[in-house]
């Protein structure tokens, strides 16, 4: 491969407990902190969310993740976004990552659309100056000119999504993560998003796309990764898993 590698996952394993923390006791925690633990051991209430995952994200490529629910797609995105860390193995991230945050997660309901552009934009790593400059573009792309000064609690989920998507694609980040985001919007806006993703790709941005829409993935993806049974395999095209 000639392209430069921006993110690399080397033999990554990630362990999660089945149960929430309620069954833990402080005594158990203290014991765990003190004694050196063997990461490879699986206790009876734990499972491997990822097993020996090897991945490379190359500059300017659009990588598509597909596979059944609960197979580890979101966990991989979390590792790329440095939100969580592998139990074993290494994750190397060389550029700024802009995750597209779930619909509404980065928004405050009482703030207006415009104010939320500032909040959400800075959260995904944009500078305030940069947001000011791009504000008109962001609003235009989101098609929300009329509603931009309205509190977002009055928005519909489609409107949330349009604004969120618009902010993410205007960020200067080299790596953009899209986690099942195109599923809510109308067809027209979807087409527009696909167009924008292609445009970003042409600009040399790296993208990770998670979706269940096979046609869409086949249209824009360069590389396809099937994530099934907690491990990742490179495949040639998106197919029925």
């Amino acid at each position: 491969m000639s392209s430069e590698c921006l993110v690399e996952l080397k033999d990554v394993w990630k362990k999660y407990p089945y149960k929430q923390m309620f069954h833990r006791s402080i005594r158990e925690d203290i014991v765990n902190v003190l004694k050196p633990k063997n990461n490879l051991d699986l206790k009876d209430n734990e499972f491997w969310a990822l097993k020996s995952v090897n991945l490379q994200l190359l500059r300017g490529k659009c990588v598509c993740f597909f596979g059944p629910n609960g197979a580890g797609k979101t966990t991989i995105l979390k590792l790329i976004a440095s939100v969580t860390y592998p139990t074993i193995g290494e994750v190397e991230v060389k550029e700024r990552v802009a995750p597209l945050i779930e619909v509404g997660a980065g928004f405050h309901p009482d703030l207006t659309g415009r104010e939320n552009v500032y909040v959400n934009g800075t959260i995904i790593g944009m500078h305030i100056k940069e947001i000011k400059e791009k504000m008109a573009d962001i609003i235009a792309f989101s098609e929300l000119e009329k509603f931009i000064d309205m509190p977002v609690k009055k928005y519909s989920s489609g409107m949330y999504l349009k604004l969120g998507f618009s902010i993410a694609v205007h960020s200067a980040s080299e790596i953009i993560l899209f986690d099942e985001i195109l599923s809510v919007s109308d067809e027209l806006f979807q087409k527009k998003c696909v167009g924008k993703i292609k445009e970003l790709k042409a600009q040399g941005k790296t993208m990770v796309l998670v979706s269940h829409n096979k046609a869409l993935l086949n249209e824009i993806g360069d590389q396809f990764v099937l994530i099934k049974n907690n491990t990742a395999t490179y495949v040639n095209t998106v197919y029925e898993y």
Partner: protein
Amino acid sequence: MLITMPSRLYKYKELFFIFVWREFTVRYRQSLIGALWAILQPLSMMALFTFIFSYVMKVKMASYSPVLFFYAGLMPWIFFSSSLNYSIPSLTNHYQLITKIYFPREILPLSGITVAFVDYLIASTIFIFFLIIYKVHITWNILWVVPLFMLLFFFTVAVSIFLAGLNVYYRDVRLATGFLIQLWFFATPVMYTIDNVPINMKLLLFLNPLTFIVENMRRCIVEGRAVVGWQFVLVLIIISVFVFFCYRFFIKIERAFADVI
């Protein structure tokens, strides 16, 4: 350790600014009197204490007006207690962000503390009026307020990040917050002074760093007295060590926040 925090945060200064701005905007949106709330709380508590101690209990706290006595004690106390109230649930309230995107997590509790700091500044303006009305003799010792406030600030940061981080693991912390703040209030000389307390009990009260801070803030502003140098240095050392360990603890558990929250 005190050096790592600014360098970690520097890169994220705009995010920090935006969080503080958002906290303010959201708080006073759809509110009638807005920022006046920052004055109303210390003012009403001061009025109540003045009434109770002057007419009900008939205890004279100091040689000067109880208005000054209580207000001077309430200002640092309210900064501390509202900082805890904002910061302790701050991480769990933003679980959607914590599980999706990386930024130094201490930004969330710190922006809560900053909001409390602005409230403190607003409440101080009223205090200046009181100082003028009651013709308080101001001396240069008033400048001690700045280092004392720094102590208070760092102590508040340490307690806040420690409890906010712990709250990610055990929600008991949030449940205990109200109770903890109430207990801490009575352990801090806000509505009393430790001047007439026997020496061994005094030492007990000084285990709470806020005792030193609140007592001395009142002394240097209203009574024009200086802070005893060695005492200040001692408290400074204790608080620095405390900040060091709390921040280290926070950094250690921060990596697992997204998995645990």
